[in-house]
C-alpha cells in the first residue's frame, strides 16, 4: 500500500476506534449512536435475515434505472447543446441556476403523474441527475482542442466519425466525471425520495426505524447504504484514474 493509502487507512481506523470508545464509555449516549461494532453486527444480521433484501434491491434497481436514463438523456442533451450553440447560449442561465431549485418539491407532482409506485422516485432522481450529465457532456465536447477537429477534417472524416472517433474520446474524462456525478445524484434522489414519501426501499426503512426507535436497525441500514454508495464510487474512481493515467503518463 502507498504511503498516502496507509495514512488514509490509519485515520479511518483511528476515528472508528475513537467513536467505539466514546460509545462504550458512555461519553456518547448509546440511545443516540450505536458503537461502530454494533452497527456492523446489525448490518450483518439485516443482510443475513433477508428481511430487507426486497427493499435493498428495490432501491438499487431504482437508482440504476434513474442513473441509466439520466446518463443517456443527459448525454443526448449535451450533444444537442453542443451542436446548436445558440440554443446553449439561450439555455445557459437555466443550466447555471438549475441546482438552485430543490427538485424534491416536485415529488408530489410525480406521484400524481405516475401513481404510487417506484416511478415517481425514478423521476425525481432523473430530474436531479440529468442536468449534471448534460453539463459535463457539453463542457467535455467544448473542451476538445480545435486542432483535433481540424485534423479530423483533414483526414476527411464524416460528422458521425468525428463525433465517434475524435470528440468522444477527447471528451472522455469529462464524460466520466459526468457519469460519476450522475450516479451519486441518482442515489441521493432515490434515497431522499424514499425518506419523504414512499412505502418501500432503503430510505423508507431507515426513516421507519428512526421513527420507531430501532436504533440498531437504523444504523445497520445506514451502514449498508453507505458501504454500497462508497463502493460504487470507488469503482468508478479507479476506472477514471486508469483512463487519466493513460492520457498523461
Amino acid at each position, binding site marked *: 500500500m502507498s504511503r498516502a493509502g496507509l495514512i488514509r487507512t490509519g485515520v479511518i481506523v483511528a476515528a472508528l476506534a475513537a467513536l467505539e470508545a466514546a460509545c462504550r464509555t458512555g461519553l456518547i449516549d448509546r440511545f443516540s449512536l450505536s458503537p461502530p461494532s454494533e452497527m456492523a453486527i446489525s448490518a450483518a444480521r439485516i443482510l443475513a435475515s433477508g428481511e430487507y433484501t426486497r427493499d435493498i434491491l428495490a432501491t438499487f434497481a431504482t437508482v440504476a434505472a434513474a442513473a441509466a436514463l439520466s446518463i443517456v438523456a443527459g448525454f443526448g442533451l449535451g450533444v444537442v447543446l453542443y451542436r446548436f450553440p445558440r440554443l446553449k447560449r439561450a439555455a445557459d442561465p437555466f443550466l447555471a441556476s438549475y441546482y438552485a431549485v430543490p427538485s424534491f418539491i416536485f415529488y408530489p407532482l410525480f406521484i400524481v403523474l405516475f401513481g404510487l409506485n417506484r416511478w415517481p422516485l425514478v423521476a425525481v432522481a432523473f430530474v436531479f441527475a440529468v442536468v449534471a450529465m448534460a453539463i459535463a457532456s457539453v463542457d467535455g465536447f467544448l473542451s476538445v*482542442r480545435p486542432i483535433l477537429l481540424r485534423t479530423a477534417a*483533414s*483526414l476527411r472524416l464524416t460528422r458521425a466519425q468525428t463525433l465517434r*472517433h475524435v470528440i468522444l474520446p477527447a471528451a472522455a474524462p469529462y464524460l466520466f466525471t459526468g457519469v460519476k456525478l450522475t450516479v451519486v445524484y441518482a442515489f441521493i434522489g432515490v434515497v431522499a425520495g424514499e425518506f419523504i414519501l414512499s412505502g418501500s426501499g432503503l430510505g423508507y426503512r431507515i426513516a421507519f426505524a428512526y421513527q420507531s426507535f430501532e436504533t440498531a436497525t437504523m444504523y445497520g441500514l445506514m451502514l449498508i447504504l453507505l458501504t454500497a454508495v462508497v463502493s460504487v464510487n470507488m469503482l468508478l474512481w479507479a476506472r477514471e484514474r486508469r483512463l487519466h493515467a493513460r*492520457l498523461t503518463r
Partner: protein
Amino acid sequence: MTGGAALSRPEPARTGGSAAGAAGAAHVRVRGLTRVYPGAGGRPPLKALGPLDLDLAPGEFFSVVGPSGCGKSTLLDVLAGLSAASAGSVSFEGRAVTGQVPDGVGVVFQEDSSFPWLSVFDNAAFGLRRLKTPEAEVRARVAEALGLIGLSGFADAFPAQLSGGMRQRVCIARTLVMRPRLILLDEPFGALDQQTKLLMGDELLRLWRETGATILLITHSLDEAALLSDRIGVMSARPGRFIDLIETGWDRERDSRIAADPGFGAITARIWSQLREESLKAMRAAP
C-alpha cells in the same frame, strides 16, 4: 468565386505579384485567391490574403515565407479546403477545392495534433481505419510509415510519453499512411529546437524524394525555406501576396549540408532583402 470565371479571365502580366507558371499540368492551381474576414462589432472587414496566383508542378517542393500575420496559414487552410476563399479559385489535380479536403491531400499542422488516447501505431492507423482498410494492409502501411520517420520502436507508446519532435513525427506518419499526393505543412517544426529542426528537414527531404509527393511548406524560417525548397514564395505583409519567387536550383538529392554552399547564403540574403521591409511593416501594424 468558382473556378470557371476566374480561370477564363485573362491573366494580366504582373511584376512579382504572381507565382503562376506557364499553363500546363499544374498539380495545384490558384487564381486570384482572396480571403477577407468579415469585420466583427462594427469594425471594417479585414483583408487577410491576396489576391494571389500560384501554380505548383507535380513533385515540386515549394516553401512560403512571410512576415507574421501575412496570411500564410490562411493560404494553407484555403489550399487544403479547410476554409473557403472569399474570391478566386483553387484547384487540385484539375478539380476545384471547395469547403472539403480533397482526396490525396495531407495536412500537417504546427500545433501537436496527435490523439493522446491512441498509441503511436493507432494514431498512424487512424485515417486508414476510418476508410475500413483491411487490417493486414493497415499494419503494413503503418509499419512502413513508422519506419520512414524512425518511430518503429515506439509503436506501442502513447503521445504523452514522447518528446515534441516525436509527436510531430507521429502526425507526419498519420498523414503519410494515406499516401497523399500533395502534402501541406504549416510550420511543422516551428515548436522544435534548431538541431531537431535541421534533422527533421532532412527527413522531410527524404520522404519527399521517396514518396514523390508535391510539398507546400509554410515557414517563418528563412534557413528552412532556403535549405528545403525547389522554389520559395516570399509574401508581403497583410494582405499577403507574393512579392518574390526564388528558384533555388538545388539537386533533388540534397540535405541540410547544403547550408555550407555559397548559394545558400545568397538565397537567404535575397529572401531577407525582400522580407525585411515587409516584416517591419507587419511589426508596426501589430497591435
